[in-house]
């Protein structure tokens, strides 16, 4: 845990960033799939 | 005006004949109190624990007793008749008043049991505030379980759904009431401490009664 204590900002920051950007790319994939289905 | 009183009178007559609601609820309360007393022999119970216990007992007692109001109508198959004879408004008002009455009786008996069985630890220091939070909490629980049991009554499978659906909705009310009860058990002049909780209770009750009054018609008519 010592490593985490010293790098708190990076842990919290990277998780937040990954959540948002991950959500974005997940959404993008969904959007493409839905579009494909809608055009069928 | 007389219509909702008719619904209320009908429910009261059924209750006096079968004594189902009240006896189930009081059994539930007694068992809860007995389990608590059995598991904490000779221990000093703090006001925070006592208030939480009392509201847990009241909440689950209400779920066993008050859920009957609409679910029993559906099970007996009398809801169709009720729909024919009374308007949605009067059914709602009748059931609400009946449930509030049942819940206040339940709260009063819970208070009695706690005064009797926890005589050593359960000291109410501010009676008016204690009674105020108890009755406001009882009204809120009755209002929420009226509308939600009407909602669950419309579903084909009823059973355990009501507590699952009602517990989270009632949580803000139960939290505020528990906090207020703890304070009235701790200090003799509790108004300053419970003001926020009482405000929450009053506004929650009013919001719930109004919203369920408006929504009841939607659930009730087919």
């Amino acid at each position, binding site marked *: 845990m010592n490593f*985490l*204590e010293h790098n*708190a*900002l990076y*842990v*919290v*920051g990277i*998780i*937040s*960033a990954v*959540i*948002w*950007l991950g*959500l*974005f790319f997940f*959404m*993008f994939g*969904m*959007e493409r799939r*839905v*579009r494909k*289905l*809608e055009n069928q | 005006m007389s219509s909702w009183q008719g619904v209320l009178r009908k429910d009261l007559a059924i209750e006096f004949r079968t004594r189902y609601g009240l006896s189930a609820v009081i059994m539930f309360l007694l068992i809860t109190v007995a389990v608590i007393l059995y598991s904490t022999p000779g221990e000093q119970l703090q006001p925070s624990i006592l208030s939480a216990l009392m509201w847990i007992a009241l909440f689950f007692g209400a779920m066993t007793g008050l859920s009957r109001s609409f679910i029993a109508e559906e099970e007996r198959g009398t809801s169709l008749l009720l729909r024919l004879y009374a308007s949605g408004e009067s059914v709602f008002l009748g059931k609400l008043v009946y449930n509030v009455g049942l819940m206040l009786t339940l709260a009063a008996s819970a208070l009695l049991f706690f005064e009797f069985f926890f005589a050593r630890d359960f000291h109410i220091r501010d009676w008016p505030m204690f009674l105020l939070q108890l009755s406001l909490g009882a009204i809120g629980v009755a209002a*929420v379980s009226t*509308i*939600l049991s009407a*909602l669950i009554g*419309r*579903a*084909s*499978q009823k059973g355990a*759904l009501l507590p*699952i*659906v009602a*517990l*989270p*909705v009632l*949580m*803000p009310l139960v*939290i*505020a009431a528990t*906090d207020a009860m703890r304070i009235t058990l701790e200090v003799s002049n509790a108004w300053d401490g419970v003001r*926020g*909780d009482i405000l*929450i209770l009053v*506004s*929650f009750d009013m*919001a*719930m009664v109004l*919203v*369920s009054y408006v*929504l009841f018609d*939607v*659930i009730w008519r087919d």
Partner: protein
Amino acid sequence: MKLFRSNIFLWCLGIALAIQVYIAFETPIGGSFSDAKMLAMNGVQDVTPIKATLLSYDPVTKLGRFRDLYDDTGHVVMSDKAYATKAAVGDVLVMSVAYDKQTATNNLVDLIRVNPMMTFPMIQGLGELGRNMLFHVPMSMVAFIAFLMGTIYSILYLIKKDFDYDRRARASSAAGLLFTALATITGSIWARFSWGTFWNWDPRETSIFILLLIYGAYFMLRSLLEESEDKKARIAAVYNIIAFVTVPFLMFILPRITQSLHPGGGGGMAGGEAPIINLSGKVHTDRTLLNMHWVSVFLFLFVFLWLKDVYTRILRLQDKQTEEN
């Protein structure tokens, strides 16, 4: 919405989000001389980043005279000459400073930035983690907006009896639930580093937990009902409206009257009023951070609308498929 059918808009949104994430972690945090002194005196940390304007520099004593953001002047010993040559008089410096308790002097440890575009304030007890305010707080705000929209769609469904409103209500509430869950996750990781444990049963944590339960019950109720689609939608819509009545209590009222570790709690453990939404209607947050916070809210609102839109379309496709079968 038509907006989300355009790829250009979606790429703009993605790039804006990436820039926002970059800004949130790149912008330096700068406190004041009094922050540095207090944190060192209380033994919280020895080295504190401060933001101050260089007024004059004496090369002999290596003493720089600064004015910080509260108009306090202070002296910093800039022992390394290299630091001094990087900045000229009149520059705004963000630097980490060690406050020496014995001699009551500030010693320069590191020069972080000269004339930064913007800085975030030093929030007491949070330090560098204060930047997380740009992610955690907007998430809960957008979750509230999502629940509100879900309720509005439920009301519209009950009035107009159009199934599309039911789908939108479901999608909004699902997105709200997702955002609440994300706010809980980021919040509990944040809590691990600033309060010591992942979960403290702080009033706000309790109320967000109940909120998750309520909307979890909404989706459970929906999946458990074995009724006709019309009846199912009606029951779910009524429950959604009743559930929303509790949301203001859980999100705004309860956390404000009980003792809380979060800012704005009644007990004043974290000090002062809530930073953004409070009873006196004042904003108690630094302008820069607040503006960036609203940018975050705005961007995440679009992410929510997009999420809702995609989920509504999926539900529409599903319903079309069941109709065809």
